[in-house]
């Protein structure tokens, strides 16, 4: 089965350090999403791209978060500087909007702990 691959699976870092999370979407999917999941807030949409162009990053704290898609096989989410409140599981998902409504395929997530 085709998969969305996220690395690393786990990351523990100190407050103030830079964190980079990577995602390889499913080949042929032209839409990529970044979500953050916490117990309190559930799944929150941070940003998404279509055909590598950023469409919406309104869910992302702009001062410290950045999302890019340097090529069709790689999406990155960067936090600089990281803070303890950024601790969460970050998911990447990809999809292909043929015919309108469609589902996403999620990766296994990056569990981030900022101490």
């Amino acid at each position: 089965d085709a998969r969305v691959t996220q690395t690393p699976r786990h990351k523990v870092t100190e407050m103030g350090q830079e964190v980079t999370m990577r995602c390889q979407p499913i080949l042929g999917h032209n839409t990529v999403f970044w979500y953050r999941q916490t117990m309190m807030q559930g799944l929150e949409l941070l940003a998404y791209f279509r055909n590598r162009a950023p469409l919406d990053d309104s869910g992302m704290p702009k001062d410290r978060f950045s999302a890019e898609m340097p090529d069709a096989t790689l999406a990155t989410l960067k936090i600089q500087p990281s803070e303890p409140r950024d601790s969460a599981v970050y998911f990447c998902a990809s999809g292909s909007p043929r015919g309108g409504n469609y589902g996403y395929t999620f990766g296994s997530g990056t569990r981030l702990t900022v101490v």
Partner: protein
Amino acid sequence: TQLLEQSPQFLSIQEGENLTVYCNSSSVFSSLQWYRQEPGEGPVLLVTVVTGGEVKKLKRLTFQFGDARKDSSLHITAAQPGDTGLYLCAGGSGGGSNYKLTFGKGTLLTVNP
């Protein structure tokens, strides 16, 4: 802001019991999806419903989209321990390049042997 409220938040039942979980909103969605998430993994799509009143069945799972396309339910018959997980509903909105999903916070289901 579109919100999806899921209930109950937690549900613990015995193997063989039936259950229904709900997903409600004041907003109209173009589609409604249900996902199941197991510990340490990402959500996995179970079903997409797009027509008001639509009912879909997936083995022991029955999904229904409300007539007004604002709510949905998931019914599980004769639950099994393998059904344990976080069940998330997600509403689709916007069209074309603006299409995106809004997720509820989920129902955490535990099926005890």
